[in-house]
């Protein structure tokens, strides 16, 4: 790791001011993506601005309509939250399937959503549940937030403060993991919203990162059963291909994961 200067601001305003007045600053949350990157010298920020002491970024609040999670909330806290488990069990289950125990004790929902790794779990829930992303300066709907591999609508210096999920009628998450890295090779988050609409978000597989599989959404909105997906395929040219799984295999996995998510509505299916 190159030399750097660590800061721990206590307020949003202080964090943004530090960002704006520093040369080559980067925000730090759980560090479980950023620190490995720094150790590999793939990035060399001169200033690390730790967001975890800012009160607005912490806490989980559940009402009858929404689950609101502070950006610095750790994966383990979301997984263990009784309120989240009761409101959106698939979301708690997803959080409990990220990485391993130690990763879940440090990694945060905001860090994962800001990073937008094409194989990360949370982006699928954010997109399927049509979450609203509250930043230090505005609200961004999920459909406008994800903009391709590691790219989001966040501007330089913009801080993701909390994520607001509308509670669906029911949701399910199914994932096929890479056994070595434990990241998704393909995963589907399916949710039926209270207006009857079904949204299907796929992560791990798409060559532009997380995406909505609209053909599956149309069929499932009419008929929310795995059978409704019979005969529906996805174009392998939209898929990532790498040494772990070629694109046509990933395309196949997507259809299997979508089916499993529907078969496991109200929970998760992780292999």
């Amino acid at each position, binding site marked *: 790791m190159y030399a*750097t200067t*660590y800061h721990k601001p206590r307020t949003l305003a202080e964090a943004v001011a530090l960002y704006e007045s520093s040369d080559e600053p980067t925000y730090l949350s759980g560090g479980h993506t950023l620190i490995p990157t720094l150790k590999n010298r793939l990035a060399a920020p001169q200033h690390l601005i730790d967001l975890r002491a800012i009160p607005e970024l912490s806490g989980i609040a559940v009402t009858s309509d929404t689950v609101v999670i502070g950006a610095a909330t750790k994966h383990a806290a979301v997984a263990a939250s009784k309120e989240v488990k009761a409101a959106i069990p698939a979301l708690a289950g997803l959080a409990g399937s990220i990485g391993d125990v130690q990763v879940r004790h440090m990694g945060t929902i905001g860090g994962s959503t800001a990073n937008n790794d094409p194989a990360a779990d949370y982006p699928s829930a954010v997109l399927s549940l049509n979450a609203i992303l509250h930043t230090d300066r505005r609200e961004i709907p999920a459909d406008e937030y994800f903009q391709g591999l590691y790219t989001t609508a966040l501007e330089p210096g913009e801080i993701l403060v909390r994520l607001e999920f509308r509670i669906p009628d029911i949701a399910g998450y199914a994932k096929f993991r890479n056994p070595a890295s434990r990241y998704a090779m393909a995963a589907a988050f399916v949710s039926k919203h209270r207006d009857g609409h079904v949204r299907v978000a796929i992560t791990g597989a798409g060559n532009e990162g997380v995406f909505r599989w609209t053909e599956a959404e149309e069929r499932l909105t009419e008929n929310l059963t795995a059978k409704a997906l019979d005969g529906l395929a996805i174009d392998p040219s939209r898929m990532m291909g790498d040494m772990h799984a070629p694109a046509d295999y990933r395309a196949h996995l997507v259809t299997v994961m979508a089916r499993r998510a529907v078969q496991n509505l109200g929970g998760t299916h992780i292999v």
Partner: protein
Amino acid sequence: MSRVTITINGRAETREVEDRTLLVQFIREHVGLTGTHVGCDTTQCGACTVHLDGRAVKSCTVLAAAADGAEVTTIEGLADGQTLHPVQQAFHEHHGLQCGYCTPGMIMASVDIIRRHDGMLDEHTVRHELEGNICRCTGYHNIVKAVLDAAEKHRAAHAVAAE
């Protein structure tokens, strides 16, 4: 440079360190407690697992400066004098190690698992929750046996304590 104070195994340790110092470097190089190992340095192997404010974390992926003011327990902090911690004792009895390189991390992760589940563990859960710890020698079999045995003793001890 930052002045960082971390309470390690009950002792406040203050050092002047570079901001890029990792928690594992603080523990090993600055405080001299070398029981915590570095196996991969890429957050995969879990050899560097310690408890940070009571939770198992990979200390190769935490900045010492970010842990300022925190409480850390390392493998050196488990035994009570000459008496091994029950999880250490179980690893010893079940031969849950060969070369021993992964063992400090395995034990710190196992203590965390047993505590979080109040000792209510089955083999599947132990294997699942030890995913973040890699052992190149044992094939995990005896490690899992040791954790299950220690979990059972934890339950028994707590049932006695509750009476």
